[in-house]
Every structure is written in structure tokens, then in C-alpha cells.
């Protein structure tokens, strides 16, 4: 069930340049079903900014009723969000969308590939996969070292490769360069990041099955406004479509026309 909760700020820290980790407490957490779901955040109380901001659930803890969001303070809304203090509340609508399907994975290996602010949901996903018996490997791409985060946390869960565009951390280049170079073996891949990255990944890993999480500008976030619609790969000019907010944001690779 989707709920609208005034969630309490438990902690709020800057973990890299312009990157913030926000831990929220509230009953909404009870409703979270799968890693990869997201929430819609109302920043401020008035009309500035007007619309909610979609942010992935990076991780959550059902017992403590807490969840973690990791976001980049970039535009008007996220910059304002970064000013919220511990003890204050944030207006959250969620959980939204469908997350990653985490099946039993005994003796299977998952490759998790994230780019920039696409990295956060992979953290919760990685933990879920491990809980289901998967071995996990991570490839994380960042612009440069200053905006990278959660390296150690991912390393605790499994093998972790980092790529930065300028080479200031890990391999110089993109996540696809790491795949090329390291050729990590895996059974299924799970990815979240900018569309060009997903596109490159999907075509490079064409023979593999995987899941990708998409981003699209949103209005309602719940499937009503048709803002976030994408064509399907098997009908690129037709009338069949998916909505990123309610059908996604996670789709099996190859379903959506990127």
C-alpha cells in the first residue's frame, strides 16, 4: 500500500561532495516490498518547489522502521532537502513502483552495476541478494573520487570495482570499461544509472538476463499522469507502453525501448 507519511529525520549526513545520506523513521517502512522501490519526497511546505522528487530507497530496516535515502543535492529541491535537520519531518509518499525481484540464488552470482545516483538502490539490493544466497559483485561508476560513496560498504558485501571518468578512483573510464577489462563472471545482472549507461550495458550484455532500473521525469509518481511513459522494445512506435513510476522503475532487460 502507498502511504503518505511525515517521516522523522534520524540522521542526515554529507557523505561525499553534494551527496547526502538521509535516514528516515516512520510507518511507511512497513510497506516496502523490494529493493529498487522509490519514494516521492515533498521538499518544503509551500509551492517552491512545487513537485515531489523521486528518490530510490537505498536500504531499509523493517524492525527499526527506518529507511535510507542517498541523493545528490543538485537542483532547487534537493538543495533545500539537504538543509533538513535531525528531528524534523519530511513528507514522503511511498513506497512507489516495483523493485528488483530477488529470487533464491544458492550458488548463483549477481553482477550489480550502478552509475552515480543510480548506485544507492543497489546497496539494499545487494543485501537482499546475499540474504537469498547469491554471491554478489559490484561495479560502481562515478564522475570522480569526490562524488564517490559507499565503496567500503559495498566491499563488505562482495567484490567491488570502481570506475571514475577521470581515473581518480579505481579504473579510469566507464562501468562498461570495467566489464571489458575484468570480465567478471556472473549469472544475472542488476543495474541502475543514467540511461546512456543502461543502454550501453544492455547491448554489451545482450546474451545475459538482467534487470535495469530507469529514470524519467515524473508528475504524479503513481501512474496517473502519463508523464513517465516509455515505448516497449517489441513495439517501438506503437501504442503499447510502460510507465516507469508504476510498472517500473525496474524492468527486465530488453523490455523497454531505451
Amino acid at each position, binding site marked *: *500500500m*502507498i502511504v*503518505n507519511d511525515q517521516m522523522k529525520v534520524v540522521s542526515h549526513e554529507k557523505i561525499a561532495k553534494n551527496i547526502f545520506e538521509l535516514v528516515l523513521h516512520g510507518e511507511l517502512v512497513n510497506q516496502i516490498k523490494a529493493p529498487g522501490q522509490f519514494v516521492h519526497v*515533498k521538499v518544503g511546505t509551500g*509551492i*517552491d*518547489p*512545487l*513537485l*515531489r522528487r523521486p528518490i530510490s530507497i537505498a536500504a531499509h530496516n523493517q524492525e527499526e522502521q527506518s529507511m535510507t535515502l542517498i541523493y545528490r543535492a543538485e537542483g532547487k529541491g534537493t538543495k533545500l532537502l539537504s538543509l533538513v535537520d535531525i528531528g524534523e519531518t519530511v513528507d514522503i*509518499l511511498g513506497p512507489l513502483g516495483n523493485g528488483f525481484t530477488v529470487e533464491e540464488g544458492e550458488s548463483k552470482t549477481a553482477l550489480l552495476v550502478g552509475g552515480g545516483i543510480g548506485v544507492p538502490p543497489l546497496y539494499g539490493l545487494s543485501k537482499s541478494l546475499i540474504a537469498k544466497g547469491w554471491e554478489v559483485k559490484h561495479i560502481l561508476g562515478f564522475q570522480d573520487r569526490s562524488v564517490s560513496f559507499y565503496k567500503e560498504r559495498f566491499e563488505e558485501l562482495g567484490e567491488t570495482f570502481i570506475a571514475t571518468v577521470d581515473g581518480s578512483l579505481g579504473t579510469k573510464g566507464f562501468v562498461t570499461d570495467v566489464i571489458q577489462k575484468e570480465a567478471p563472471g556472473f549469472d544475472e545482472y542488476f543495474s541502475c544509472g543514467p540511461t546512456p549507461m543502461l543502454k550501453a550495458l544492455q547491448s554489451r550484455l545482450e546474451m545475459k538476463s538482467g534487470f535495469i532500473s530507469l529514470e*524519467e*521525469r*515524473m*508528475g*504524479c*509518481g*503513481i*501512474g*496517473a*499522469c*502519463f*508523464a*513517465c*511513459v*516509455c*515505448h516497449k522494445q517489441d513495439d517501438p512506435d*506503437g*501504442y503499447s*507502453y510502460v510507465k516507469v513510476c*508504476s510498472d517500473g522503475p525496474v524492468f527486465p532487460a530488453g523490455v523497454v525501448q531505451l
Partner: protein
Amino acid sequence: MRRLEIELPGLSLKNPVMPASGCFGFGREYSQFYDLSELGAIMIKATTEEPRFGNPTPRVAETNGGMLNAIGLQNPGLKGVMDNELPWLSQFDVPIIANVAGSKMEDYVEVAKEISTASNVKALELNISCPNVKTGGIAFGTIPEVAKELTKRVKEVSEVPLYVKLSPNVSNIVEMAKAVEAGGADGLTMINTLLGMRLDIKTAKPVLANKTGGLSGPAIKPVAIRMIYEVSQAVDLPIIGMGGIQTAEDVIEYFYAGASAVAVGTANFVDPFVCQRIINELPALLDELGVDQISELIGRSWGKHESKTIYSS
């Protein structure tokens, strides 16, 4: 609790608050949040003869106090709406206002004829003001003669009363209102979005793939209020007002201006409970204003008090 009731052509509204077309889909998503029977009515997403995919994405962009959209009338087409959406909606005790769109007159006529036969469709809303479709659309809404002719032709085939949705992108809104009145409209809905645009600082390109889009939200409310104020004094048609409504106070302002009911669009995206909340807040606000029936407020800004009893229950 009959103080919120409003009687309009074809519509017995238990309260004057309804979601605006395109901002509520066909109701399915919002039915997760509250019982749709609580609503005065529902204006469903524009329906065209054939299914439409709409425009490429990005389709929305935020602006100061508002948003731009260029959805491009995506909808499952007349058959899809008749077969799947309207029957599903019939489980709720709420009148449906079907928003009818097209690119040629014949399209409108075809859709209106058919969709007006659905048992829960109590009125049509003729969308002659969508700024986001290349053909037709905007022209129907800016040339009085064309709007009148279209109104007439649709009115001829419709089984239910016909409301015409006016575009604010005109020099003279009163002239447009009079034209559709002359064409036989039973009511007006206003306003649709203002044509606007936003450019990306980094790329220099429009944020919307469609380049321009329709501006909605609180930013446009003063324009809507002004237009309803002018039109309600010049024509004899009831008006369903919309544009930037977020609160019960906004609803009252629309009534004062001359509206007999209101629709809420963009605000649903910010607060999915907004229509329900407004409906619940209205009675206390009427108390504060010392008013028994909300219908008494229609046109109060220009002194229309008891005159329009035909619309009050």
C-alpha cells in the same frame, strides 16, 4: 450535509470538487487513496478515437509555482475507454465527465456520439484547448467561428449535456465563451493550460521533448480567476473552474469569481488526497464565512447573489 450540493446540466454533484482531466487518469491509481464516490465528479483523461501514445519524453517540467506538461493526449482510445475504463469506474457512485479530443471535427463527433452513451458519463467536456497536439487542438480553441461550429456538431450527436473547455491563450476569452454558447454548449470549463516553455541552462535546448507545453498549477490561478470573472458576467452558462486550486480557500475564490464547481489538476500530484481534503474542509470554511449553501457564493464578487437559483439544489 447537503450544503455542498450543486445542480448543473446533467450533473447532480454531491459536492463541487472534482479532479481535472489528465491529472487523475481514469481514477484507478487514486482509488488506492480514498473512495472515489466521495468526489463530486471525475473528469477523465482526454479520449480520442484511436489510441494515442502521445509525445516523446520528457513530458513534464517544473516551473516557478507551476509545471509544464506535454503529454500529448496519451490514451487507450475510444474503444479502450468504453470497454475497460468506464465499466471499471461504474463501481463508484460518481458522475463521469468525459473529456473529448481529436484532430478533425469528425473525430470529436465520433468520440462524443459514442462515449456519451455510456451509462455513467453524465456530461462531455469538449477539449478544444489542448496546447500539446500539433493538428487541430489549439486552433479549435482560438478561433470563435471554428469553436462554435464544433460545439454545434458535437451537441447534435451528444446524449448528455456538453461543456466546452476554453483555452486561456486568447486575446478575448468572452468572445470565445459567447461563440460556444451560441453553438449550443450547456456549460463551460476553464481554464486549460497556458502555453509555456522552459530551456535547459546546460544544453540550451527545451526541457520538454515537445519544446512547448501547457503551464498549470498555482502560478496560473490569477489568470483563471480573471477569465471566469469576465465570462460568468457575459454568458448564461455555468462554469466549472480550474487552474492552480490547492485549498478550500481557492475553491471559494473560484465561486466568488463565478464558478459553480471546480476541478483540481496539478495539486493531485503533490498531494494525492487533495480533493478529499478540500471536500472535507469546505463545510468548516462555509461556517466561518457564515454561509449555509456553497451555491450562494457563485458570482459573489460581482454581485450575483440569489439570482442563479437554477443551479442550486
